């Protein structure tokens, strides 16, 4: 019996680790950048422009350019993957904060909250739906992009897809694709649950939302 179970486990593990760190680091960067871009309008164009510029570089090219610099390990993949999460996350942090009604902010300030406290206790929590929406999109996108890193030695389930290509073999191709999509679906559902946990007040409004 070959390494099938073990391969799938290793591939899945690699896929999850690569995705998790990419989105986590992306969020750690995007939150302060987004807050700054929202607070100081003039920062918005450069912040979105820079993260958008990364988007114009095709992923394989970005990974290929990083390989001579950072080698054939996970670091190379992570740097590229983090880059691709930034535009969505920064955009959604800004949009989320933009969406906080002005009177809510006024009320908080009126109650004696400092701007910092207002941000942490009122504005960011209210921006959570938009931020989580961004995290959802970024995560699903990243899960797809991870498969491309098979061409530089990682890949997660993309390794199976690559095997399917190299040996003209439908089985690992289908398996790798299905598992990748299933992972994306599962994580997406998980993130919806996280959002619900973080925003109990939105359940009442949920039915009114146009989606």
């Amino acid at each position, binding site marked *: *019996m*070959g*390494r*099938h179970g073990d391969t799938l486990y290793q591939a899945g593990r*690699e896929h*999850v*680790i690569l995705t*998790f*760190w990419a989105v*986590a680091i992306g969020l750690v960067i995007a939150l302060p950048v987004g807050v700054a871009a929202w607070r100081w309008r003039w920062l918005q164009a450069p912040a979105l422009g820079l993260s958008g510029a990364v988007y114009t570089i095709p992923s394989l090219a970005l990974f290929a350019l990083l*390989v*001579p610099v950072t*080698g*054939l*390990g*996970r*670091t190379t993949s992570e740097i590229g993957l983090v880059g691709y999460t930034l535009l969505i996350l920064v955009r959604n942090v800004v949009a989320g904060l933009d969406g906080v009604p002005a009177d809510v902010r006024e009320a908080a300030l009126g109650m004696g909250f400092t701007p910092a406290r207002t941000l942490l206790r009122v504005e960011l*929590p209210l921006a959570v739906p938009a931020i989580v929406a961004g995290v959802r999109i970024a995560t699903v996108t990243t899960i797809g992009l991870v498969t491309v890193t*098979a*061409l*530089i*030695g*990682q890949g997660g389930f993309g*390794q199976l897809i*690559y*095997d399917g*290509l*190299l*040996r*003209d*073999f439908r*089985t690992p191709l289908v398996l790798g694709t299905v598992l990748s999509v299933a992972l994306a679906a599962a994580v997406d559902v998980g993130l919806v649950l*996280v959002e*619900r*946990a*973080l*925003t*109990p*007040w939105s359940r009442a409004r949920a039915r009114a939302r146009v989606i």
Partner: protein
Amino acid sequence: MRATRGGAAGAIALVLAMLVGACGSGGGSKSSNTNDTGATSTTASAKAKASITIASANFSENEMLADMYGAVLAKAGYPITYKLKLGAREVIEPALESGQVDFIPEYAGNYLSFLDKTVGSLSVQDTVAKLRTALAPKGITVLEPSQATDADAIAVTKDFATKNNLKTLSDLAKVTTPLTLGGPPECETRVTCKVGLEQVYGIKVKFKSLDADGPLTRAALDKGDIHLARVFTADADLKTKGYVVLEDDKHYQQAGNVTPVIRTEKLDDEARALINKVSAALTTDALIDLNKSVQVDKADPKAAAEKFLKDKGLL
């Protein structure tokens, strides 16, 4: 407020748990395992064994060989990490030199001509000797070459060979129509491939970038998109696909003996003996059989390798 805090705390706990799980057990590709060098110890059992990262190129035979050597070393207690299908030698070899990977099941002649484009075609003994001289200062040890060989070769369809009366590569000079060669991207710049064809045989060809002797190259040859295909001599399906391998009468191809290389600090006597035993057991016919299992019958490379080892009593 309390509900939010609880929910937020729960989410943070979940994230932390994933973080711990992600960092935990078994490193990533950059092995965070602490290594003993286990270098030149004669009592290998007394010292902890070096963890070895085995790399393979992006074609299935090499992946199978990586699995084969890895299986034997793993059974003897060496922690093995695999980095398979990394790419062409141009990409993997620097990783070996920098220590990102430790072991590659290489091919003597092609490796030497990668290091020295002017070296030409030598006997396997001379090739290995030169390799050792070139690699020792880089901290890489070249182990014993196997008698199993797999070298680059140029194939054409049977029809093309009959129509143009082709038996050797020199015969290609007779062909008047412009020729297109198909192969992996690195073929375009290698002396063992397109460049060698031009330099040694004087045959100028157009190049179409496909894959490393995989389904894309075969599809292109069958379709007529290319006239010449870069294949490997140990391929299992050359006859069944009706391909004719043109003889390398001017000897621009290298000694294609399977020759494992390993970073010197990861090599101890026990590992050396195990690796050399596997190399000794491999023959070209066995290699072709294994390729048939993996490429044609789509067996799992690791399963095919382990079956071979068990049959030879090495596992």
